[in-house]
């Protein structure tokens, strides 16, 4: 059994923007936890244990080291099993000690799911190499391929995370975790309690229904569920989150830590530390951290024609191949009251939308007020971020600050066509649409 596991980001990180401007792809959530924690769980369960290191975009190395506590971007000429960080791993590939280097793929795709690397190869797998598809392909070309479809599902786009979330939560459920350690007030009901976990310090107030008949409900520690809530599994609610009265949390939803949510949320992932406190609908969406969605915001996740939905990732339309796709909202972005988001909308990093109907693509660092589109200054954005984070007792560390400022430059490259009007002052919705 390989004792060195390296979780790496490949070129596919670009497809997961704007969610990964300030996090590694492996920090995205799917199932019971984020992808990295899932891998750590698998390695920890293995005989002899293993160290888990990370190869990521160099610009995020400090931040990811800070958030994960793991060794980041330290290439060593020691044998290693490299696992693609956007993989939903269910088990680790078998690695025989005398097998030599090989590459794991999924369903015949060219994407690299894993690399069993000998010492020499491991030493040449640098962060720069693994995130460059052409260079990685050339380096790995001579190696034999193995299909490891039974070990992992590679998640390519944000909507893949959303659609895999429910089934992953169900398969991740450990019956042994069924327990009610928190307080469930009289007048609340648990349907299929054998599929419910409520962590210590959490409180479920009266007239709430937790319905685990269709899938497990996992509630972390110190979660407050206010009266008249309905929680329909499979659902994961992480520690410190607050459900406002009357919240309807529907199947396939993950709420990350320290969120405040209300209204209706269906089949969505909220990364954490974000607010959608009031009435409104959020469906089949992925929302980042430090996001605020004001009262009565809604998003569409189904076309009237029931057709396939196209999503503007980095401003370019991608056919999702899915009928249900909501919106993607990047970290630190805000939606004003009563904003409607069209099907497949993407809102970038640190942007604001204050108009009845949002454009389908909102570039990062854009302030949209009615028909006017302005550049949201990055320094001002950082100042707002400090205030928002302070309200949850979180600090803007130097690594966070550096990464935040870096996003502006990244966005100029990665959302180039839509950023140009903001840079040159050619304001107007038609210039960014």
């Amino acid at each position, binding site marked *: 059994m390989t004792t060195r596991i390296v979780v790496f980001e490949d*070129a596919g990180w*670009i497809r997961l923007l704007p969610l990964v401007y300030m996090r590694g792809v492996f920090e995205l959530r799917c199932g019971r936890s984020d992808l990295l924690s899932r891998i750590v769980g698998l390695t920890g369960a293995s005989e002899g244990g293993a160290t888990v290191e990370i190869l990521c*975009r160099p610009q995020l190395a400090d931040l990811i080291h800070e958030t994960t506590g793991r060794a980041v971007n330290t290439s060593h000429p020691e044998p290693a099993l490299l696992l693609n960080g956007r993989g939903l791993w269910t088990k680790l590939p078998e690695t025989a000690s005398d097998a030599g280097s090989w590459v794991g793929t999924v369903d015949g795709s060219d994407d690299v799911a894993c690399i069993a690397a000998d010492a020499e190869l491991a030493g040449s797998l640098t962060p720069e190499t693994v995130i*460059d598809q*052409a*260079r990685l392909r050339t380096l790995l070309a001579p190696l034999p391929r193995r299909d490891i479809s039974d070990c992992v599902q590679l998640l390519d786009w944000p909507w893949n995370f959303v659609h895999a979330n429910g089934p992953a939560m169900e398969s991740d459920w450990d019956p042994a975790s069924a327990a009610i350690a928190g307080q469930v007030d009289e007048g609340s009901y648990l349907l299929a309690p054998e599929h419910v976990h409520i962590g210590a310090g959490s409180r479920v107030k009266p007239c709430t229904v937790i319905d685990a008949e269709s899938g497990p409900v996992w509630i972390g520690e110190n979660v407050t569920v206010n009266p008249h809530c309905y929680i329909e599994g499979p659902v994961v609610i992480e520690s410190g989150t607050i459900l406002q009265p009357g919240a309807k949390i529907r199947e396939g939803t993950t709420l990350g830590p320290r969120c405040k949510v209300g209204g209706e949320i269906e089949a969505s992932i909220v990364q954490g530390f974000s607010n959608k406190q009031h009435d409104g609908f959020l469906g089949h969406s992925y929302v980042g951290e430090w996001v605020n969605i004001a009262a009565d915001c809604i998003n569409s996740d189904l076309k009237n024609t029931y057709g396939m939905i196209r999503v503007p990732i980095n401003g*370019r339309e*991608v056919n999702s191949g899915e009928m249900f796709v909501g919106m993607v909202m990047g970290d630190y972005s805000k939606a004003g009251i009563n904003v409607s988001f069209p099907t497949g909308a993407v809102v970038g990093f640190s942007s604001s939308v204050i108009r009845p109907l949002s454009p389908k693509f909102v570039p990062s660092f854009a302030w949209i007020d009615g028909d006017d589109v302005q550049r949201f200054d990055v320094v001002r954005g950082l100042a707002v971020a400090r205030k928002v984070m302070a309200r949850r007792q979180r600090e803007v560390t130097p690594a966070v600050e550096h990464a935040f400022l870096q996003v502006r430059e990244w966005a*100029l490259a990665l959302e180039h066509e839509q950023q140009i009007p903001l840079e*040159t002052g050619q304001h107007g919705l038609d210039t960014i649409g």
Partner: protein
Amino acid sequence: MCGIVGYLGVRPVTEVLLNGLQRLEYRGYDSAGLVVSGPAGLKAHRVEGRIDRLRSLAESAPIEGRTGIGHTRWATHGAPSLTNAHPHFDASGRFALVHNGIIENHAAIRSFLNQKGIEFQSETDTEALVQLIGFLYQGTGDLLESVRQALRTVRGTFGIALLSSEAPELLIAARRGSPLIVGVGSDELMVASDASALIGQTSQVLYLDDDEIVTLGPDGLHVSDLDAVAVERDLVTLDLTLEEIELKGHDHHMHKEMHEQPASLQMTLRGRVNSADRKFVLGGLTSLERQLPNVERALLFGCGSAWHAALIGEYMLEELASLPTTVEYASELRYRNPLIESGTLAVGVSQSGETADTLAALREVQTRGATTIGVVNAVGSSMARETDAGVYLHVGPEIGVASTKAFLGQVVVLAMLAGYMGRRRHLSDERLIEFLEGLEELPDKVREALETEQQMKELAFSLADREHWLYLGRGVNFPAALEGALKLKEVSYIHAEGLPAAEMKHGPIAMIDKGMPVVVLAPRDGVYSKVLSNIEEVRSRGAHVIAVTSSEDAELDQLAHDVVRVPETHALLSPVVTSVPLQLLAYHAALAKGRDVDKPRNLAKSVTVE
């Protein structure tokens, strides 16, 4: 246009690049350069002027490596200079790019990058593209994604090849609107603007389509589109030989190509005309076979010599097929608001199939509903692929910038098209057979016309000091006169004008003074006597008359100072024969003036810019 070449393989890359550039030099020769990716990173050489200078520089300062790209330039943006010579680098020096085409929004890109503190080294549009790639790479960290992003941003045309010090063993190439061919050899891969650079090195090629990117590396080649979707492409066998592009004893490609005309016309006609069976076999028109008899009018368009060929085609289509025909300059047609009525057959004429104005005109008429045919020499070119049907010239590669065998090939193809259409539209058997026989005899007649070379040489040397020439012709020889004038201008830089003979007296005759050379095309045809009158008019004003005729006529011998005799042909086909001495005249006039015949100043073989 420019020429680009790239190589990845086991042979010394510099030599391969230089040889490839030499073959592409006819595409542009203002400046040249190459860059090699080796142990010491990206190393480049650039020169003003010809490939020979680049070769000398490369030999004096060799660069080791197995991957490289090269470029020979025809200046569009930025003067011909060392600074503007390709390859161009980004600010970090990690990317080197060679480019054929024009980046139309280069100014906006440059302005944006200037704001980001990036300083440019040249005036070229190309540098804007490579600087943009370098800037985007800082964000993406992914070579291919940076190239894709940049190519999605730029507007205009490109055939590019790119090297990066981040991946020394990779070569990335892409195209939009400018041709790019990938050659696959044993242990080596190549890219080039056209097949002439690949001949003799590989016969297996792949023609890239617009907005396709190819990555060449130790693991082979990978083609994808701008959305990163892999594209499966099949290799095809290159149908060109080394023999076709070498000089083979001639001093210039133009001379060789003029003397190839009997054989090249034979190839144009082979399998397509059969007087015994009274038919034309144009396989390239099969898909339109049922539509063509119902065509109501024809619209021909082209640029330069192709436009002249189209003018000749107009006479033929109207005479043989009774088809109302108009001819347009492609450059004008594309920007007009043309009325394309239903039942219009639009015929684009272009040797290279890449001429920007002709391509744009084609797309314009297609948008308006015309059925389109291409008359093209270059197999697999953009026009060949975009038209509804077409007829290749099959005259082989034409390296000389001034068109000779391609022009005659275009005339012959248009003649076949006219006969083909006439066959389906009431052309009598008698006239059809007469025309077919005329076509079949053409190669021999052209061969005979080439025997006038010595006479044309003596004429050229004796008159090369004259500053202004006039070319006159009537009927189907009027366009031949235009072509003759163009040839003289192109290669000798002497001013010449072509006119319908009858128009001359409506103004231009005022120009004629003593000793002014006037070339008159006077084959024995229905307007011969009228042409004789025109000769008298100019002679009486002191012109030095050179008559090109198929006639044995004492009167003409008296009127003209010099009589050039060419064989008689079918009246409609006479331009094919009368053009030959005019080509020879231009060639030798250029020699008399000490001009570079194959690479005239300011010209490019295929004008792929507007």
